[in-house]
């Protein structure tokens, strides 16, 4: 995977990163992603179905996520499930590195307090 193809996706829109995090530990369907994001952020981030599926469409096009061809047996047959691709993981890693570096810089200059 060439770094420049990854860089093309950075900075990642926040909604993308939220979605990637939500399915980081396994596949989920759309509504489950919305719930997961809301839970993780204690309700501060609530995506509308429009934001969610608009992001999913673009992430599918970009190859960050993929749709499962076989659905888990326990769930509703009609729902589409999504999981992170390898490329998606690479992009997420690059994005979080970028954010970590940013955070470090902010602390180094005293803009934000250092971690206790």
């Amino acid at each position, binding site marked *: 995977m060439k770094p420049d193809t990854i860089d093309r996706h950075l900075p990642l829109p926040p909604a993308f990163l939220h979605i990637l995090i939500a399915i980081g530990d396994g596949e989920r*369907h*759309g*509504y489950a992603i*919305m*719930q997961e994001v809301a839970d993780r952020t204690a*309700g501060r981030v*609530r995506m*509308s*179905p*429009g*934001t*969610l*599926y*608009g992001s*999913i*469409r*673009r992430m599918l096009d970009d190859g960050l996520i993929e749709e499962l061809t076989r659905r888990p047996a326990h769930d509703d047959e*009609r*729902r*589409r499930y999504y999981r992170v691709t390898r490329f998606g993981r690479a992009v997420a890693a690059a994005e979080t590195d970028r954010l970590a570096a940013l955070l470090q810089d902010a602390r180094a200059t005293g803009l934000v307090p250092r971690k206790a």
Partner: protein
Amino acid sequence: MRLRDRLFAFVLKLYPREFRDHFGADMAAAYREARDDAAHRGRAALPAFWTSVALDAALRAPGEHLMLTAADLRFALRSLRAAPVFTLVAFVTLAIGIGANTAMYTIVDAVAIRPLPFSKSSDLVRIWEKNDVLGIAQFSTSALNYLSWRERSRVFEDLAAWRFGSVTVATGNEPVRVRRIEATKTLLPVLRTTPLAGRNFADEEVRVGGPKAALLVEAFWRERFGGDPSVVGRTIVLDGVAHTVVGVVPDRGLTTPVEIVTPLVIDPAQESRGNHTLSTVARLRPGVTVAQARQDMDRVAQQLSAEFTDDAQWSTAVASFYDWLVPPATRTTLYIMLASVALVLLVVCANLANLMLARASARSRELAVRLALGASRARIVRQVLTESLFLALAGGAAGVALAWQSIPLVRRIAAGLLPPGGHVSLNASVLFFSFAISVAAGVLFGVLPAAMSKSGDVAAALNSGGRGMAPQQGFARRVLVISEVALATVLVSAGALLVQSYSRLQHVDLGFTPERVTTAMIGLPDERYSTGAAALGFYDRLTSSLGAVPGVEAAALSSGPPLTGANTGMPVRAIGSSPLGSADMQADWRFVSGNYFAALAIPVVHGRTFDRREFGDNGLLSVVLSQTLARALFTGDPLGRQVRLGNKRVFTVIGVVGDVRNIGLATAPRPTMYFSTGEFLWPAMTIVVRSADEIPVAQTIRRTVAALDPQLAVFNVQRMQDALADDASQPQTTAWLVAGFAGLALLLAVIGVYGVLAYLVVQRTREIGVRMALGATRRTVTRLVLRHALWLTGVGVVAGAAGSTVLGPVLASELYGVSPHDTLTMIAVPIALLAVSMAAAFVPAWRATRVDPLVALRAD
């Protein structure tokens, strides 16, 4: 379904179809669950949820469309770049088509669409005098009748009247003659015009013997006084009399283009009801209809004709103010020009649709592959339409640039058509029009290829090896070419008729010889030429000194030479036996000097023209008749017979002259009476000079006048041939524009025919190869292609000829001396079109004969 489910469904509907097909069901479920979840979290969460739904509808759904369009555009650009010739042809023809439509529309907009510059102009009406006995539909009114109308009518907010004329202004060292109206004080209020500076006339200024006031009109004020507002209060000298400038009127605030307005002072003691000199405009009271105004004025007119003998035969006509400023005939001409340029754009669209289909069939394999790979058909339709719309908008933008470039030319075309304050410009409404026709064009030439791409058979296209064209596509292309040929036939027929009409107008028998004739006007101020004898003496000296200048063949005087004079008419009857009995007939009249006929080379058929016998107060009362009038009034020799005019005066016929087209090229000569300028003069007269080619006539006239009276201004100096050219300029413009559009349409149609046949040959290469292998000669092959071409164009020209026949009457008003169903045109144009198309078909036919059977058969 519950209301909220319906709402969710509605929001989903706003998304692109492809998106909906894929995510719709999941999204609907997500909406339901998110809503339930919000309800669980408490009442406060619900508004936030519905806000997010609204945002989805308002922003995210359009956003998805936008992203799809962006992708389609990238695709369109790529495919257009891959076909540079097609792209160039499409771009150029669209630019020309949309540009020409835009340019033409700027005129239509300025003349017929933009409202008149007068506030609530729909409440304005013109009031005319009417005389059914004499067959006069619209005539000026007398000052006394104007006063009576104003006093007795009940339907108008107010009435205003004016008289058009000219006046000499002494500014600087050279006096200038300018146009002026004498207007009532009510004119500005009725038109709702407010002065740019100063004020309207005051009561005492319109009274007899009151102070002399004048209003300057904006353009003249800017040109002569540099737009200085302090001009108000200053004194200017008009025809030798000092006037105080009381205000400045905007150019757009008057109905007639003039430089100066002075008060119309009516002295009832000096006026007669038979003296029709005033134009009248009135503003209806709010809520009053034109029909009610007509009724009321009929009542007033009946009273007046009962009370005054001068009004006995007269009634009134309340007419549209708008039609007076923008005559229906002008609108017809404009709409014909706009329609012909719109037809050109239609041909452009048909041609492009054709080219797009040709490309689509070349691309059918690519499309089939994409369909097979899962692209939805809707998606492909959308892509084709994006491509055509993009082309149309790009062509439209270039067209607007072209139109913008041609504005000076367009202004020249529109010059004679504009109402007051009318101005040709590329304004917002024109730009909107250009945008709208660009979109319409894009849809028009894109929709057929788009529909065809949808119905294409995937398997067939994949199997055909890219050669294949669905049969309905071939049919569509034929229909398109046939329509192109038909539209071109309609336009070429119209162009041919208009050009013939114009050429007839150029060769019409005028009744006089315009070559080497120059006319100029002079007005004598009353103050210095108060008696008829003084004016007579001046003109006598002027014509004899002019006549003595070497190179001048004749110098004559007239109240109105052909094409420039006012349209004057009066009833006349023969005294004694006449084919008309004792009935009146209406005849035009002019005052002329004896050598007027020599100056214009109007033949004297019988008798003589005016000389010293018709000069001064005691001169003989003689009349010279035009041939038509003499024939209508008298059976035998008219010389020595007498006529009585509408004003009861009796004149003796001394001569008969040839008929002259006084009104215009297209108007048949009217019966005309000529009276002697030795006895009758107007405040402004026209000098008519026939000269040798080489002398500077205008200068000679100016110098001669200045030698006699340095304070007089010579104005409206014009070569008679220029007046003729002016008169023919509108028919000329219409003819050449329509002919130009026709040429363009023809060219495009020929390209269309060529394209379809060339494609046909490529498509049937194999078949032709087989035929040739089986012994078909080149001749048979040529005939095969030509027969196809003949069939296509034949159907096209027949349809076009039928169209021309149906549309013919629309053109009738524009045609002079040629019928809209002129047989020769109706036969010659289709034949010419057939010939041209067959010529275009020869190239593909020739190429067909070059097919090598071996190569053709090996192709698969």
